[in-house]
């Protein structure tokens, strides 16, 4: 059996290199914050960050100087504020600024889908009349080979060097199960050359096999599986802990001031040493009010062949 269980430190050290194109996915739910922090600790630079919805973790990576370019569809801190490290880097313009490549949600998702499926491009029903194709040469129009006089916009396949995702649980072989809002994690994992999956817990093989429909990414498409409890904080993991909205609301004030952002990264990323240190710093009672009441699904009967 191939060794796939890693420490977060080792997984990032082995699979994320300077200059890589890194897909860090999770749609509000299941955002791999712990991996973002570890990338900052290890001082990666020159990354192209791919993320449909760059939020606080992207602001932290940009603020730490890890990212040269962002491929994205929507960037913001929900309805509670701005991401000032990103805004400063973009609005500065010129050398050293952050390059942006903008898509719509489905445009970027379709890039992952084409990348995952090994096809050169994917048609989408967007972009007709939009200014986006004028600033993003990847948005092109082709004639339908089937319908004379019909055109469609297409997006090219995207194959990131590495995808990093977070999920509720996996077995030691890297079979990843998630539930709740699924995001583009499956598409990103299959599109990328390598995949690191962070999970809340590594469970016995039988647990995964008791509900195979729940597996979003099979073990063969995962290079490293890492048990990182609370690894998605301040985002959330359905059934494990809720979103830390207080932190989301506090972020604008931190990122607005470059010195304050620097101090935050020092205190919460560098000085904590690793994610266990980060969780310890939050304190033993921190997650109690964020822990949801159980709300179990009714078991399904897969049956057993006789």
């Amino acid at each position, binding site marked *: 059996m191939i060794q796939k269980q890693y420490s977060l430190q080792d997984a990032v050290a082995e699979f994320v290199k300077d200059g890589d194109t890194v897909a860090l996915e999770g*749609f*509000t*739910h299941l955002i791999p914050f712990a991996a973002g922090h570890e990338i900052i600790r290890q001082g990666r630079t020159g990354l192209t960050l791919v993320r449909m919805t760059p939020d606080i973790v992207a602001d932290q990576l940009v603020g730490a100087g890890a990212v040269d370019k962002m491929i994205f569809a929507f960037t913001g801190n929900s309805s509670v504020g701005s991401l000032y490290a990103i805004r400063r880097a973009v*609005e500065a*313009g010129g050398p050293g600024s952050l390059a942006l490549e903008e898509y719509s949600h489905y445009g970027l998702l379709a890039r992952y889908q084409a990348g995952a499926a090994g096809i050169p491009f994917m048609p989408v*029903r967007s972009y007709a009349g*939009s200014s986006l194709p004028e600033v993003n040469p990847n948005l092109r129009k082709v004639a339908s080979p089937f319908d004379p006089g*019909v055109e469609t916009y297409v997006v090219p396949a995207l194959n990131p060097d590495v995808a990093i995702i977070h999920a509720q649980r996996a077995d030691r072989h890297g079979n990843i199960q998630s539930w709740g809002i699924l995001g583009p994690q499956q598409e990103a994992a299959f599109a990328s050359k390598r995949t690191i999956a962070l999970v809340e817990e590594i469970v016995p093989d039988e647990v995964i096999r008791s509900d195979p429909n729940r597996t979003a990414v099979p073990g063969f498409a995962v290079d490293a599986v890492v048990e990182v409890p609370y690894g998605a904080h301040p985002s959330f993991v359905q059934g494990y802990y809720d979103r830390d909205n207080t932190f989301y609301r506090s972020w604008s004030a931190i990122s607005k001031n470059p010195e304050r952002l620097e101090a935050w990264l020092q205190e919460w990323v560098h000085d904590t040493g690793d994610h266990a240190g980060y969780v310890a710093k939050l304190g033993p009672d921190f997650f109690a009010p964020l822990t949801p009441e159980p709300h179990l699904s009714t078991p399904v009967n897969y049956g057993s062949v006789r």
Partner: protein
Amino acid sequence: MTPFTALPNNTAAADDAAAPAYTSSELLAAVSCRYLQGTRRVFAGIGLPTLAVALAQKSTSPDIEQVYESGVCGAHPPRLPETIADASLATGAEAILTMPVLFGYVLQGGWIDVGFLGAAQIDRFGSLNSSVIGDWESPDVRLPGSGGAAEVMANSAEVFVVMRRHNPTSFVRELDFCTSPSPRIAREKDPLVPAQGRGVTTVISDLGVLKADETGELCLATVHEGVSAGQVIEATGWPLKVLPGLSVTPAPTAQELDLLRNEIDPGRVYLR
């Protein structure tokens, strides 16, 4: 012209001289909610659209189906969601779809009756900008970006837009950047790309309500209490036409305000 069907309780409130005062957000949510009446399936963005849909579900439209771009369909949230991908939307939902299914089949497949969006800028025919103010290369303000707005515009049967501030920098003659083009512009610039949907039919702002005429041009349909047509024309960056029979938007009812304040958004997440 009747811009919308007046509800029985609106009539009651109109007779009620002691109707309570309300904020702009409350007005926007209540007015938006009324336009949703009769809508079957709505694709709701975050913020005021979330409030309006929640209010509709609790008052006029208990059977309205909420679809969120996080893939949640048929949400029954026990509390107000703070984002479109909130845990409260997932628990107890009727379905959580994968993203290829949500964007590919539900949106592109044409299943959405009303897409409900916000934007930084809107033009005369309902094209939206949510990308940049100023130059693309070195923008004055970097806005969040397209997200799902381009897909919602291109694929919903019709689109409602709610704008917190009606002024010439948001209701513009020309967009700084066109993130979500109106079908009119889409057909003009890319005539061979099949289009579906009517684009923006209704805009609810803090001054009044604009409705699209038969050419797709947004025209003034109602003004809010204490606002004149001249004021709205002044605040609009294009020569705004006024529809015949311009009326005054009915104020939020006591029931609508009670639901918004005490049941839907007691924490004032979106109500300001």
